[in-house]
């Protein structure tokens, strides 16, 4: 019975979409140029041009998209060129925009979507109303919205602190006993126990280049990992009193520095950490991590479990996610949230419509985009065409290897056929880069690792266990002037603070309370108070908006 109903529903759904496509109001074909960031595929332009899903979507609204994919690495330059020379495309992916959207709109570059939202984008509008966090990120202080956002329904952390569990097991013969008596390392004492075992292990293995803990070249994770255990939530965070704070100017940061200095002297911290500035902090020295000579580092979801092992060379690694150590000596009870455990929508992920479009073109494309916020549209966008949707073209497209196809009608479930099609090297509709809702991957039956755990879920659960309250939202909106002042002060403060932090940890500058006070004073002299008041004001506006 259930089956019959679902088939019936699917047929209705299908008829509905067919009818939409045949509507007479779309009798004139409209063509749009699109500036779109390329995906990580060999031929991104053709990926968009040949996507079965995009063809289906275009036909539905009788539109045609003409893609302009900038060379990888030159995206922001081309974006600025377009804006600077007036050679806009009709549709612009704002992923690399560095300008204030409100200013762009005031200058007549992009359309303000607010007046069109309710009438032409009912689904988008309804979705935003149901998700105030995204809404407050996409609307700015003037109450306008400029983007058809690309929104992850349930974003996952892609990385965080990880540690080599196998080392602890080996060194203790399987009886890992953390001083806190927890199963996982939680306090500073636990970490010291762990780092000591790791150091012994590397020394016993005769490695001359090893790292217990790898920290970034600036001496701390600006996104909050590690320092969150000392009660600091990253470079910018919101403290318990609701005040915006600058992490490295906080009093607690002294405790962090003292501990890091101690660990550095004991050889727990990677001796050459300060020189690795060209390693992005989230991928430190792969020679150490993949070479099996690192204990704790900022790892990626893909590294969890035993995927980094080299069985044929006798290198077995068991990598597990980790939370920052809690500084119980100074009264900290739980780690502060980290920066990455953050927002779903952002004011630079999505499409803006430029004024190269007249109102007729604007309305048509908004209507088309709106479909990507419906349940069916989102499923199609995220996982490709279902059997009926692509019936006519499916065989041809799957033969060419340009769609997963084979999605069950009316479902958003990932199937084996889709996985098989994925091996052809194809991807869904623009992954996270096109507007619409990116459907949660949790619902798909994904590959589990040997522990029977989905690393995406596993990592995410651990890394965000500190909660999401108190994270300073990176999607917050500023005026152009505020932005400029904030950037200037921040650069000056960092230019002063980062060398100091590294010197404190390495013992090149003596770390005393007085020295730290002088350091804090210098940050104030460089404009910390003005910086914080601007951030605070923007944050207050943001929270007020979210409360509406």
């Amino acid at each position, binding site marked *: 019975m259930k089956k019959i109903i679902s088939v019936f529903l699917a047929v209705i759904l299908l008829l509905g979409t067919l009818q939409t496509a045949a509507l007479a109001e779309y009798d004139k074909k409209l063509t749009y140029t699109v500036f779109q960031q390329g995906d990580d595929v060999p031929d991104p332009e053709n990926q968009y041009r040949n996507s079965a899903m995009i063809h289906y979507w275009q036909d539905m609204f009788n539109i045609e998209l003409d893609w302009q994919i900038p060379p990888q690495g030159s995206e922001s330059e081309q974006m*600025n060129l377009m*804006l*600077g*020379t*007036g050679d806009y495309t009709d549709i612009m992916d704002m992923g690399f925009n*560095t*300008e204030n959207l409100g*200013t*762009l709109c005031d*200058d007549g*570059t992009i359309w303000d979507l607010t007046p069109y939202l309710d009438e032409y984008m009912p689904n988008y509008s309804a979705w935003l109303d149901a998700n105030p966090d995204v809404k407050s990120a996409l609307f700015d202080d003037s109450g306008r919205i400029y983007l058809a956002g690309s929104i992850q329904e349930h974003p996952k952390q892609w990385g965080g602190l990880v540690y080599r569990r196998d080392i602890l097991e080996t060194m203790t013969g399987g009886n890992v006993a953390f001083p806190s008596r927890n199963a996982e390392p939680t306090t500073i004492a636990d970490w010291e126990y762990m780092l000591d075992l790791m150091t012994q292990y590397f020394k016993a293995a005769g490695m*001359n*280049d090893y790292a217990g803990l790898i920290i970034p*070249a*600036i*001496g701390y994770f600006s996104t909050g990992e590690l320092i969150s255990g000392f009660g600091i939530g990253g470079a910018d965070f919101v403290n318990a009193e609701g005040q915006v704070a600058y992490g490295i100017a906080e009093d607690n940061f002294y405790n962090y520095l003292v501990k890091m200095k101690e660990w550095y002297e004991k050889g727990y911290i990677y*001796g*050459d950490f*300060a*020189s*690795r*500035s*060209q390693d992005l902090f989230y991928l430190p020295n792969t020679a150490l991590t993949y070479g099996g000579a690192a204990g704790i580092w900022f790892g990626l979801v893909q590294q969890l479990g035993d995927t980094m092992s080299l069985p044929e060379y006798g290198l077995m690694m068991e990598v597990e996610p980790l939370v920052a150590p809690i500084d119980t000596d100074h009264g900290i009870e739980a780690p502060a949230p980290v920066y990455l455990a953050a927002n779903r929508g952002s004011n630079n992920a999505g499409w803006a419509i430029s004024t190269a479009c007249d109102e007729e073109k604007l309305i048509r494309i908004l209507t088309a985009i709106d479909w990507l916020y419906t349940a069916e549209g989102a499923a199609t966008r995220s996982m490709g065409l279902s059997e009926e949707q692509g019936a006519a073209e499916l065989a041809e497209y799957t033969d060419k290897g340009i769609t997963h196809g084979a999605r069950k009608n009316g479902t958003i479930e990932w199937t084996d056929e889709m996985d098989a099609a994925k091996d052809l090297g194809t991807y869904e509709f623009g992954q996270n880069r096109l507007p619409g809702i990116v459907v949660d991957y949790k619902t798909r039956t994904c590959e589990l690792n040997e522990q029977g755990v989905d690393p995406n879920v596993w990592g995410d659960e651990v890394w965000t266990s500190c909660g999401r309250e108190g994270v300073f939202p990176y999607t917050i909106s500023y005026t*152009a002037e505020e932005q*400029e002042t904030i*950037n*200037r002060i921040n*650069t*000056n403060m960092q*230019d*002063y603070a*980062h*060398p100091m*932090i*590294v*010197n404190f940890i*390495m013992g*090149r500058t003596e770390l005393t309370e007085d020295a730290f006070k002088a350091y804090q004073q210098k940050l104030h002299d*460089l404009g910390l108070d003005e910086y914080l008041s601007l951030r605070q004001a923007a944050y207050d506006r943001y929270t007020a908006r979210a409360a509406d």
Partner: protein
Amino acid sequence: MQAKAFPSPKKTCDTSLRHDLAMNKGLYLLAIPIIAFFLVFNYAPMGGLLIAFQDFKPQRGILGSNWVGVKNFVDFFTNPSFWTILRNTLVISLLGLVIAFPMSIVFALQLNEINWKPFKKTIQTVSYMPYFISLVVICGLVTEFCASNGVVTGIFCAITGKPAENLLTNPNYFWAINLLSDLWQNLGYSSIIFVAAITSVSAELHEAAAIDGATRLRRVWSITIPSIMPTIVTMLILRCGSLLSVGFEKILLLYSPSTYSTADVISTHVQRLGIEKAQYGYSTAVGLFNSVINTILLITANHFSRKYTDTAVLQGRKKR
């Protein structure tokens, strides 16, 4: 110097423009495409320098952006790290000028002393190879060599008796590391022009000198070097004209907060502040400051060179 044997022709005729035009009709015709080229591709865009005096917003264009006078320059000069980055830029540049530049001449001369052709060719061919390898790879190797257990660190510590440390995180060594790695990557390539100049030197002069009993070294000193002197001086002057333009890519790959005090240069500063955060006006102002200083240095170098060596880039040879 062989060229001295031919004094420039005395200008007997009156040099009025019309006369010159009649005399050098062919030259004027040839000059037309040259002038047109530089006018179109180099001078026409120079209006863009105006944005140094603006709070430039790309979407408003040069005409629509707000004028802010010399604010961008004041911001730069009053930046807390202005003097540090200016000093670092000059030192890194001057080290290149005083050490790397003569080295490329010495390298060309060394090559010239090799009689065994296959060896000469091989060395010449391999010497420019590092130039083609991407900076990322080269700097990656430098980072490994200078790590606390790296090859270079090992040799350095054995010689100086200092305890092993990561050389790249010590601000005292940054200039040396930058210079040496620069030599490694560019010595061969930058000597190409001198190798070519040396091959133009008259073999007969050498033979005559050899018959007269001049030693090898003496011949290098009094025949080869004077003959390539115009090339050397020209290159030197050109380098003086780019003294403040230290490329940022390499420094960006090698520096870290612990070495900002000696490694941060104007271009990396601009890169951190300007481009990443779209401050066009500011970065153009810094660029313009660079250009003005470079012009002054170039003219000065040209002046001294004309006074002491007979060669100049701007005015041609000194008249006798």
